[in-house]
C-alpha cells in the first residue's frame, strides 16, 4: 500500500487526525479526504504526548466544520493553533478560514508562515488563485523563477494523491496567464491521474482542445487494480488498535446519546448497557457473540430497514434521477441502493485510490457511489450473496447519517427517503422478518451498524462509527469473495461510461457541433437526461442553433426541476430576449436576483430584462454589476457591449467586446459584436475579418454566415455573398433572414424574377413580416407592376401597426420615390392612395412630397 509521504512526517498529529478523520467522514473537501487518508495510513504510528491534548480539539474542529459551524471551527482552530503552533494546526486553521469563505485570511495566515507540506501549499495556492494572485500561486506550486521549477512529474510525486487537483489548479493558473499550451497539458495530466475529475476535461474543451472522452474517462490498469485491491490493502491489522483508541475517546458523550436514542427508538429492548457493550464489542469484535442475544432485535431491525431500503432505492434510481447528476458530487453517498458497492469498500476503495494514484476527493467518493447506483441499475445482482445483506446494513447508517450531515449539498427527493427509512426503522425495530438473513450476518458487523444508526439519527459523528464499521467489515471482508471487487470495477466502469457520454456531448457542444451534442445528450438514460446540467446544455445547443423556441422549452424544464440553478440561465434569458417574452424574462430575473445576488448570471438576466424593455441605461448598470461580481464572466462583457451598441457608445462597446475576448478568446459572440461595430462604422473589411473569426469558432451558425454574406455584398462581392448565403440556408433552411438578404442581393443585382421567387418562398416561412411585403413591393415597382407594388406596400403597412412603420414609410418616401423621378406623378398618386389606406401615418410624408 502506498503511503502518503506526509504520513511519516506528521505522525504526532496523526492521532488527532484520526479522530478528525472519523468525525470528518462525510465532509467533502480535498483536504479532509487527504487527512483521512493520512490518518488511515498512519494509524499505527504511536500517538505523541500532545495527541491527547489536541485530539479532542481537532475532532471538535472538524466536527464543527462538518456541521458548517464555521465560527466555532475558526475559534477552536485558533485556540488550537495558539496552543500548538504546529503546521498541522496551521493547516487546520487555514482550512477553517478557507471554508468559512475567507480565503484572504487563509492566505495571509499561510503566507506569514513557512509552508512545507504539500497540503498546506496546495491550500495556499488555492487561496492565491481565489484572490487572483496567480503568479504567487504558481510560485507556491512549482517554485519561483530563481529556483529550478518543478516539472509536472515532480509535482505528481510530491503531491501524491492530490496531484490531480494540484495540476488542475496549475492548469487554471496557466490558462489565466495565457499559457494555454501548458495549461492544456496540466489539465490533460490531471484528468489522466484522476479520471473522475470533470473540470479538467471541461477546461480542455473550453480551450478549444478536443480531448478524446474515450481516452480521458478511462481507468488505467493501475487504477483498476486499485479498485480491486483495496479491501485487503487497508490493512485491517492496523485499524483495530487505532480504532480502539478512538472509540474509547469518543464514547463518553456519545454513549449517553446512544443510550438515550436506543431507549427512544427500540421499544426499550436496548438498554444503556447494550450500547456500552456494543462499543466493547466493536473493539473486541469477534467475541461479541455474547451480545448477540440482545442485538438480534436490532439486527433484525436493521435488516428490515435494509429491506425497506432496497426496493425503494431500486425505484429511486429511476425515479429520483436528479441526484445522479455528475455535477453534484455529494449525492453519491445517498443513493439508497444498499447492495452492490458496499460502502465500506467504497471507502476503502477511495482510500486506496487516494493513497495510490488518484486524488482523494470527495468527488471521487461520490462518483464511486454514483457508480454504484449505476451499476446496481444495470442489475448486476444485488441479491447474489449474503454480502448484500451486510452491505445493505452498512448502507443504512450511511443513508440515515448522511442526510443530516451532508444534506445541503444533496438535492431533494433522495434525501427524503433515507430519513423516512430511518424513521421507519426506529419504529419497526423488532420485526423478525429477516431472521434468515440475520443468520447469515456476522454479529460484530451488525452491532456497529446498529450503533451507527442510532448515532447518525442523532447526527453525532457517525464517521467514527463508520470507521469502526470499516474495520469490522474488514474482518469479514477477508473472507469476502471476489465478486465485490468485480462489482467495484463494474461500478467504476459504468461511471466512466457515463462520463464518456457526457464528455462526448459536452465536447460537441464546445466545438459548436450542436446537433450532435443534442443527439448525444438526448440519448442519455432518463435519470441523467432529466437533470439540470444535461438539460441546460441541451438548451444551450438549441440556443446556438438559433432554435430559440426549443431552447426555451428545455430551459423552462430546467427551471421546473432545478429552480435553484443559475448556470446557463443567462443563456435562457437571452433566449427569452430573442423571443421577446418580457413577462417570463422579468419573472426569471426577479427570482434569480432574489435568490443569489453574487452570481453574474442573475445580473445578466436582469440586464437582459431591462434591455428588452429598452431601458438601456439600467440594463447597462446590471451588466456592469454582473462583471463586478465576476470579472471572469465573458458573456457579461458581451451583453454590456451589445447594450453600448444600442446606446451608440461604440467605443465603449468595442472595449467591452475586447474584454470578453480577453477573458475567453473562444467567445464567438464577442467577435461577432466587434464585427457588428465595424459594420456600423462601414469598415466592412474589418467587419468581415471579425465575423469570419467568429465563424471559425462556431462554423454552424447560419446567422453569422448571413452577416458575412451581407458584409460581402457591401464589399461588392455579390457572388461570394450569394454563395455564403446559400451555405447559410443549407445549414438552416428555416432562417428567414438569410433568404431575405439573398432576395435583396438578387434585387440589387437586378435579378428581379429570382428575387421575387425567393420572397414568395420567404412569405411561406414568415407570413406576417411586413418587410417581406415591402421588398416584394419594391420588386414589383421595378418590374413596373405598380398596382401590385402598391398592394404589397399597403400590406406591409398593415402588418406593421407598431413602431416600425415610420421607417418603412420613410423608406418608401425616400428610397423608393426619388428613385424614379420620371414616375413622380405615379408616385404621388401612389402615396395618396396609400394615404387613403392609412392617411394619418402618411400624412407628413405626403406633405413633404408637396413641399
Amino acid at each position: 500500500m502506498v503511503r502518503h509521504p506526509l504520513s511519516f512526517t506528521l505522525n504526532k498529529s496523526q492521532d488527532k487526525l484520526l479522530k478528525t478523520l472519523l468525525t470528518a467522514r462525510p465532509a467533502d473537501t480535498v483536504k479532509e479526504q487527504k487527512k483521512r487518508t493520512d490518518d488511515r495510513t498512519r494509524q499505527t504510528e504511536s500517538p505523541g504526548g500532545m495527541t491527547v491534548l489536541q485530539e479532542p480539539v481537532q475532532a471538535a474542529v472538524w466536527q464543527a466544520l462538518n456541521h458548517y459551524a464555521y465560527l466555532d471551527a475558526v475559534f477552536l482552530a485558533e485556540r488550537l493553533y495558539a496552543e500548538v503552533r504546529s503546521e498541522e494546526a496551521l493547516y487546520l486553521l487555514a482550512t477553517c478560514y478557507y471554508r468559512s469563505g475567507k480565503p484572504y485570511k487563509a492566505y495571509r495566515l499561510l503566507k506569514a508562515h513557512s509552508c512545507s507540506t504539500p497540503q498546506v501549499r496546495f491550500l495556499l495556492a488555492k487561496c492565491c488563485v481565489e484572490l487572483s494572485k496567480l503568479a504567487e500561486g504558481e510560485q507556491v506550486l512549482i517554485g519561483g523563477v530563481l529556483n529550478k521549477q518543478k516539472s509536472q512529474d515532480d509535482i505528481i510525486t510530491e503531491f501524491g494523491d492530490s496531484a490531480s487537483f494540484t495540476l488542475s489548479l496549475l492548469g487554471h493558473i496557466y490558462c489565466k496567464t495565457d499559457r494555454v499550451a501548458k495549461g492544456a497539458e496540466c489539465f490533460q495530466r490531471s484528468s489522466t491521474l484522476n479520471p473522475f475529475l470533470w473540470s479538467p476535461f471541461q477546461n480542455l474543451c473550453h480551450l478549444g482542445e478536443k480531448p478524446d472522452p474515450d481516452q480521458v474517462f478511462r481507468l488505467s490498469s493501475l487504477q483498476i487494480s486499485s479498485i480491486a485491491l483495496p479491501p485487503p490493502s487497508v490493512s485491517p491489522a492496523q485499524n483495530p488498535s487505532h480504532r480502539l483508541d478512538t472509540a474509547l475517546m469518543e464514547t463518553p458523550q456519545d454513549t449517553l446519546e446512544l443510550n438515550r436514542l436506543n431507549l427512544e427508538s427500540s421499544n426499550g429492548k436496548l438498554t444503556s448497557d447494550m450500547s456500552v457493550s456494543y462499543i466493547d464489542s466493536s473493539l473486541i469484535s469477534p467475541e461479541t457473540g455474547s451480545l448477540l442475544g440482545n442485538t438480534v432485535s436490532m439486527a433484525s431491525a436493521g435488516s428490515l430497514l435494509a429491506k425497506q431500503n432496497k426496493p425503494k432505492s431500486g425505484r429511486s434510481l429511476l425515479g429520483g434521477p436528479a441526484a445522479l447528476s455528475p455535477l453534484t458530487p455529494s449525492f453519491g453517498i445517498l443513493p439508497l441502493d444498499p447492495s452492490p458497492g458496499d460502502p465500506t469498500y467504497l471507502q476503502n476503495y477511495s482510500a486506496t485510490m487516494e493513497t495510490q494514484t488518484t486524488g482523494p476527493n470527495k468527488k471521487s467518493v461520490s462518483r464511486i457511489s454514483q457508480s454504484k447506483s449505476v451499476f446496481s441499475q444495470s442489475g448486476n445482482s444485488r441479491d447474489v450473496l449474503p454480502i448484500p445483506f451486510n452491505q445493505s446494513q452498512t448502507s443504512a447508517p450511511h443513508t440515515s447519517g448522511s442526510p443530516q450531515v451532508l444534506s445541503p449539498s444533496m438535492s431533494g427527493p433522495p434525501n427524503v427517503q433515507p430519513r423516512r427509512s430511518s424513521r421507519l426503522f426506529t419504529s419497526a425495530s423488532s420485526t423478525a422478518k429477516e431472521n434468515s438473513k440475520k443468520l447469515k450476518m456476522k454479529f460484530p458487523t451488525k452491532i456497529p451498524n446498529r450503533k451507527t444508526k442510532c448515532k447518525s439519527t442523532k447526527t453525532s459523528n457517525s464517521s467514527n462509527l463508520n470507521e469502526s464499521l470499516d474495520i469490522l467489515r474488514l474482518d469479514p471482508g477477508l473472507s469476502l469473495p471476489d465478486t465485490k471487487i468485480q462489482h467495484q470495477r463494474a461500478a467504476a466502469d459504468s461511471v466512466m461510461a457515463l462520463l464518456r457520454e457526457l464528455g462526448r456531448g459536452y465536447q460537441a457542444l464546445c466545438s459548436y457541433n450542436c446537433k450532435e451534442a443534442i443527439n448525444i445528450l438526448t440519448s442519455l438514460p432518463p435519470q441523467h437526461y432529466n437533470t439540470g446540467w444535461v438539460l441546460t446544455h441541451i438548451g444551450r445547443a438549441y440556443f446556438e442553433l438559433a432554435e430559440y423556441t426549443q431552447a426555451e422549452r428545455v430551459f423552462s424544464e430546467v427551471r421546473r426541476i432545478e429552480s435553484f440553478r443559475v448556470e446557463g440561465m443567462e443563456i435562457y434569458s437571452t433566449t427569452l430576449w430573442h423571443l421577446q417574452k418580457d413577462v417570463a424574462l422579468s419573472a426569471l430575473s426577479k427570482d434569480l436576483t432574489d435568490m443569489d445576488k453574487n452570481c453574474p448570471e442573475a445580473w445578466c438576466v436582469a440586464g437582459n430584462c431591462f434591455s428588452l424593455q429598452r431601458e438601456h441605461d439600467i440594463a447597462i448598470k446590471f451588466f456592469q454589476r454582473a462583471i463586478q461580481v465576476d470579472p471572469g464572466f465573458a458573456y457579461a462583457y458581451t451583453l454590456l457591449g451589445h447594450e453600448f451598441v444600442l446606446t451608440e457608445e461604440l467605443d465603449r462597446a468595442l472595449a467591452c467586446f475586447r474584454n470578453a475576448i480577453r477573458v475567453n478568446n473562444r467567445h464567438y459572440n464577442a467577435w461577432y459584436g466587434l464585427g457588428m461595430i465595424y459594420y456600423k462604422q462601414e469598415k466592412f473589411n474589418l467587419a468581415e475579418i471579425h465575423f469570419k473569426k467568429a465563424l471559425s469558432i462556431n462554423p454552424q451558425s447560419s446567422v453569422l454566415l448571413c452577416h458575412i454574406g451581407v458584409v460581402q455584398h457591401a464589399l461588392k462581392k455579390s457572388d461570394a455573398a450569394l454563395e455564403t448565403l446559400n451555405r447559410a440556408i443549407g445549414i438552416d433552411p428555416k432562417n428567414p433572414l438569410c433568404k431575405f438578404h439573398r432576395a435583396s442581393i438578387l434585387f440589387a443585382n437586378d435579378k428581379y424574377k429570382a428575387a421575387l421567387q425567393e420572397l414568395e418562398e420567404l412569405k411561406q416561412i414568415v407570413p406576417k413580416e411586413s418587410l417581406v411585403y415591402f421588398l416584394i413591393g419594391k420588386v414589383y415597382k421595378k418590374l413596373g407592376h405598380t398596382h401590385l407594388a402598391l398592394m404589397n406596400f399597403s400590406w406591409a403597412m398593415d402588418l406593421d401597426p407598431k413602431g416600425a412603420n415610420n421607417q418603412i414609410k420613410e423608406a418608401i418616401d425616400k428610397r423608393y420615390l426619388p428613385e424614379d423621378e420620371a414616375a413622380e406623378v405615379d408616385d404621388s398618386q401612389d402615396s395618396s392612395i396609400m394615404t387613403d389606406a392609412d392617411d394619418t401615418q402618411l400624412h407628413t410624408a405626403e406633405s413633404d412630397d408637396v413641399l
Partner: protein
Amino acid sequence: MADGENVAFLPYQFEPESDPEDAAEEPRELRPQQEVSERRMATPSKTPPGADPKQLERTGTVREIGSQAVWSLSSCKPGFGVDQLRDDNLETYWQSDGSQPHLVNIQFRRRTTVKMLCIYADYKSDESYTPSKISVRVGNNFHNLQEIRQLEMVEPSGWIHISLINQRTNEPISTFMIQIAVLANHQNGRDTHMRQIKVYTPVEESSIGKFPRCTTVDFMMYRTIR
C-alpha cells in the same frame, strides 16, 4: 404676433406623436390643433398634451439621450435646478430666478442627432409660472445658435412634443448644442417652472443591412447574435 409661425410649427409639434401606440389618437390631436391655431386669435383654447414619452421609448424608435449632455440653466432658485429638471419626477421642477429669457442649455460632447424634445409643463400647478412661449435654438456653441422652432402654448398640462426634424431634408437635426428659451410665461409671470425636459434621438437600426426594422419575432430573432 407669431401666430403665423405657430401655424407653421404646430404640425411639427405633434408629428412625433405618430407614436404607433397611439396611432389611433393621432388624428384627433393633429386636426384639432391645426384648427386651434387658426382660430387662436379669437378664442385661445388649451394646448392638448402629447403622449407620454415613455411609451415612445418602449417602441424602440427613439432613445433618451439627455444623460449624455451637459445641462446648464440661465438661473435657478436653489434646490430647483437641473437635478429637478432631469429627475424623471413630474412633481419637482426647475424654477428660474432671474430675468427673461430663461434658458436651458443642453450641450453634447459630440455632434448628436436629435429627433425631438419633450417638455412637461403643468398650468394647473404652476399657473403664472407656466411658460407660454418657447424658442428652440441649435448650434455648435453659445455663439452661433439659431432659432429653429418657436411655439406658443395655451395653458398646457402635460407633455409637449417639439419635433426637431428638418423640414427640407426630413432628417432629424444634428447638433452640438440645444438651447431652450422661455420667452414668456402665462399671465406675464416673471419666473418659470419646467418640470421635465427629455431629448430624443432616433434609434438606428440594429439589424444589419439597409433595411427598416423588421416586425415579427420570427424574423427578428435571427437578426442578431447576442
